[in-house]
């Protein structure tokens, strides 16, 4: 009977510990990468819009080579506010599930005016209208591709809702199971609160090392430098939160283990 009780405590403790680790990871994800306000703040803090504006400009300038058209034509055809609004719209569409299309009319209009001005100023004429239209399409598509991360934002949008729903279900399940363990069956299990928290804390440390140290996060580069910097900072932030939570669990676990380790000693007073 004593062994059955001991075995039950161990199993319950193990289950509670696993689900505490899962709950911690999910809550960190919900408060970071799955949180729209957090992502927009990180983007803003990282000067993503400035950097993206410059990347678009550089890419457009590179596309003017071999075109016979000077790179000055791309000056001021788009603004940082346009970049900010379009990026904001795309990020919003990921979390809301609504589609967002980048409106390129203004950029096309500005580019047409700019090219006409350049050609007139230099007494040049486009002998091949198709070639000129191809050039304009390429320049405008640079803006669209860079802002939308080459369509990557749309792909993320499709997956986000599924991931978020799964996270919500797992969070509820984890809370229910942990509550069952820690509060309802507490008579059997109360002394193992410390074990649950200490093992969850150590498990989180292991997860952090296993995943984060496997990737050279500081040198990661995906799609563009500006996007990679934001991604790096978000991943580092998540890693820091994971480590902080693990330290809190470890300390709590040690304290609870210490308090659970006090044995009652009966002293019979001799009369």
């Amino acid at each position, binding site marked *: 009977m004593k062994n059955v009780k001991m075995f039950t405590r161990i199993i319950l403790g193990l289950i509670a510990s696993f689900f505490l680790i899962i709950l911690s990871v999910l809550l960190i994800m919900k408060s970071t990468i799955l949180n729209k306000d957090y992502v927009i703040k990180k983007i803003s803090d990282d000067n993503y819009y400035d950097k993206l504006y410059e990347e678009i400009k550089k890419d457009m300038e590179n596309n003017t080579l071999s075109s016979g058209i000077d790179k000055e034509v791309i000056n001021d055809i788009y603004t940082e506010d346009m970049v900010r609004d379009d990026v904001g719209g795309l990020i919003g569409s990921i979390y809301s599930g609504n589609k967002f299309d980048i409106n390129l009319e203004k950029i096309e209009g500005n580019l047409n005016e700019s090219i006409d001005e350049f050609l007139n100023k230099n007494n040049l004429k486009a002998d091949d209208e198709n070639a000129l239209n191809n050039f304009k399409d390429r320049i405008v598509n640079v803006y669209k591709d860079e802002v939308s991360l080459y369509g990557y934002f749309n792909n993320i949008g499709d997956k986000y809702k599924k991931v978020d729903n799964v996270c919500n279900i797992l969070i509820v399940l984890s809370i229910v199971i942990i509550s069952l363990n820690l509060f309802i069956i507490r008579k059997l299990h109360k002394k193992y609160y410390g074990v649950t928290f200490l093992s969850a804390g150590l498990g989180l440390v292991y997860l952090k090392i296993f995943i984060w140290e496997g990737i050279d996060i500081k040198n990661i580069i995906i799609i563009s430098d500006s996007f990679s910097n934001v991604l790096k900072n978000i991943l580092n932030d998540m890693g820091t939160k994971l480590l902080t939570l693990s330290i809190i669990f470890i300390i709590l676990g040690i304290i609870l283990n210490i308090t659970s*380790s006090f044995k009652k000693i009966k002293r019979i007073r001799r009369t």
Partner: protein
Amino acid sequence: MHKKHKFSKKVFATYVAISFLFVSVFIVCVYFGFNKTIKRYTNLINTVAIKRSEEAREISFDKVNKKLEVMPAYGDKYGNVIIDSIQLNLPLYYGDNEEILSYGIGHYAGSYFPGEGGSIILAGHNDPGYFERLSEVKEGDKITLDVSYGKFSYKVQSTKIVNENDLDSFPISEDRELLILYTCYPKGIGHKTERFVVYAEGDES
């Protein structure tokens, strides 16, 4: 009778040991359950998404097997393209994206390297400081690729004008060292869809 509480080191040690037991079970589950999946994704990221170091890689060429043992990193300058007949001497980079082509001549990453015995495809803009004068190259002209592991000479065999989507005009040969240089054609306003292509073969002289 009164009750007193005494701290039991044995009990504390038991609880800590059980905690480590739980963590060990967790580590085993994660390792055997997810290790392959996580390693696959981390290896993929480390292979394709890790920035190259700022120092240019030291290239080494195996002369016996005619193969590069260590390739340049994508975006690295690894030599010069020299065509004396049109006074051309330009830096040669590995890779041919828009950014690399703004620096000089780009080497298509799907083709071979000089000395390997296969097709080498190089691209440059039809602009001053790039391949602006490429269309002046004639049959018999000498082209030299002066790269970090040696100098390789080629003689122009022919030139032609092709559509940018005509992939047959850019053959990837595995057993013949064919140097293919191309640029946009003709010069003018806009994005041109034709290419001026120069074909050259290894010159032993």
